[in-house]
């Protein structure tokens, strides 16, 4: 009998029967996350389905992150509706200010080895970093989970991504994710899973894996999944504090799944981590990725640090390191900082980084989705070039269709804030010399 991929094993366990790529399984969901962007519609569907009581309140998590804080009376009332429903049914709510649902699912270790999680938001794929099957669904599917505790899932074929070597100084997980987007294209992993293998995986810390898994959906992936290893268990161990930690961790170790050596993959690609260079996705497509040098000199008026891709402590520290060494953002650059969660913001406050950001004039926005999808936070002005640590740069994504959004790593974003134009941080370090290119490029590539 031919071996199984990680996704095949994860969904087989959840469905209680052996499933192979292409099979459709009715899968029991460990947790289903919904946001203020998706839950209100789910409540409408649930009601239309004739739902009265949810199947299992303990498997549902509602995060108020898209309108944080509510920018209008109507969005405020959407949140009121969610809170009321959750209170009536005993569903956990992460209220405004707690942060992005995806980050909380990971921080609070809902995402654990062997589990199946769905999120009514496309970036639910993030959780796959923790050796679970995690994918995005819509509001109607969330209502289906509320009704039945289950979801139908077609088992994806998997792309085996071999990572070798290690990222060089200055290159980051975001550059790896953007490189994968360039390699695979916006639909190169459509309906498929990305499964990560190779000696390079061990060199990626847990946050790095979250970044890569998070952006897998920008390649069309159904899910991305990593094997559990020392990095996974160290992370979980830190998250599972308290008396029951040892037994919870032991259960995680026991529940972890690994692909069989003879598993069948739809295709296989190799990425040499040492060759990953700082890069930038150009407006308005995530897979239009070029080396930073190619757009060096493009003026930027807004720099966005945050989101479920680039809003964790490590991201802010990397950005701050560049900003502090070079005197903060250039005049005329609006620096917007949105921690992905309250815990991250508190950590930045304790570490002094938050004060440093404030001292350099950064605009600090409530933890949540912020400006990323234009539902709240700082909206760019007409014609503005934004460079952002986010995952999407679609036209109008940040709430203004005339803005141009470039995507890059925290370091590249920070360096660009310092220079007032896109620049490789390494070039900034040699600032005694003139920049490689000082002729501003047109905003539209």
């Amino acid at each position, binding site marked *: 009998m031919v071996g199984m991929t990680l996704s095949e094993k994860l969904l087989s366990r959840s469905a209680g029967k052996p499933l192979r790529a292409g099979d459709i399984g009715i899968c029991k969901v460990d947790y289903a996350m919904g946001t203020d962007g998706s839950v209100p519609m789910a409540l409408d*569907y649930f009601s239309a*389905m004739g739902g009265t009581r949810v199947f299992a309140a303990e498997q549902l998590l509602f995060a108020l992150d898209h309108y944080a804080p509510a920018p209008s009376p*109507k969005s405020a009332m959407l949140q009121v509706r969610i809170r009321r429903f959750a209170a009536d049914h005993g569903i956990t709510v992460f209220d405004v200010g707690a942060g992005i649902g995806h980050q909380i699912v990971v921080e609070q270790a809902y995402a654990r080895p062997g589990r199946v999680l769905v999120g009514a938001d496309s970036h639910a794929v993030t959780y796959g970093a923790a050796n679970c099957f995690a994918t995005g669904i*819509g509001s109607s599917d969330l209502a289906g989970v509320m009704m039945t505790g289950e979801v*139908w899932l077609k088992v994806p074929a998997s792309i085996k991504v071999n990572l070798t070597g290690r990222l060089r100084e200055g290159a980051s997980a975001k550059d790896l994710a953007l490189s994968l987007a360039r390699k695979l294209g916006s639909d190169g992993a459509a309906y498929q899973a990305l499964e990560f293998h190779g000696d390079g995986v061990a060199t990626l810390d847990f946050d790095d894996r979250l970044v890569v898994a998070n952006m897998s959906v920008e390649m069309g992936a159904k899910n991305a999944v990593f094997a559990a290893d020392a990095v996974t268990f160290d992370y979980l161990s830190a998250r599972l504090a308290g008396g029951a930690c040892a037994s919870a961790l032991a259960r995680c170790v026991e529940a972890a799944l690994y692909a069989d050596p003879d598993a069948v993959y739809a295709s296989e690609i190799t990425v040499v981590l040492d060759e990953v260079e700082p890069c930038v996705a150009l407006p308005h497509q995530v897979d239009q990725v070029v080396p930073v040098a190619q757009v060096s000199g493009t003026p930027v008026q807004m720099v966005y640090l945050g989101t479920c891709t680039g809003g964790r402590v490590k991201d802010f520290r990397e950005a701050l390191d560049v900003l502090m060494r070079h005197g903060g953002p250039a005049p005329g650059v609006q620096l917007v900082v949105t921690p992905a969660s309250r815990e991250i913001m508190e950590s930045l406050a304790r570490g002094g980084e938050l004060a440093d950001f404030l001292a350099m004039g950064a605009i600090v926005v409530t933890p949540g989705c912020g400006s990323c999808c*234009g*539902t709240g936070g700082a909206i760019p002005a007409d014609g503005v070039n934004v460079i952002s640590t986010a995952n999407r740069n679609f036209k109008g994504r940040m709430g203004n*269709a005339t803005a141009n959004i470039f995507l890059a790593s925290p370091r590249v974003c920070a360096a660009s804030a310092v220079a007032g134009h896109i620049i490789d941080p390494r070039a900034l370090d040699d600032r005694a010399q003139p920049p490689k290119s000082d002729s501003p490029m047109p905003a539209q590539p």
Partner: protein
Amino acid sequence: MKDDIDTPSQSRMHAATTQPAVIVQGTARCFGDDINTDYIISSRRKRESLDPLVLKDFLFETIAPAFAASVRTADVLVAGKNFGCGSAMEVAVTAVVGAGIRFVIARSFARTYFRNAINNGLYPIECDTGSIQEGDALTVTLGTTITVLRQGASEPLVAAPIAPEVLEILAAGGLVPYLRERRTF
């Protein structure tokens, strides 16, 4: 408008294959590759209303500002690869349904859009759309296979098959009627 078809001798039968084929005429409204859900309906719009009849007035406002005013109920959306990529927001389907559109034909769909379409009774038809032009008269035939005939073309385009389990949800009219009746999967 009805056409008898052979009843297949499949072990697994479902509603769609046991009913006569349904033939629907429509007009092609063409879009390109990688049309993300934010282009279909800007995510900031759902902040103010979730009503499809309100949202339909903002369909494609970012990339085709004249579309919403000109859309007709018999229109068929036609696109290239990866239609509905990006956010999983379901208003990108319900706003289309709100405009009276019943079919989206694309070379491929992002999986969340495909699911949401099925769940809302919007037919996601996957076939090679390269030959279809804006304004083309299209004949969609829903039967054991789904086909799309472009006026003037000799052969219809044949859609990729949809799994029987999934087709059952679509045939029920979407996930709401499906679960309202069955209570479980």
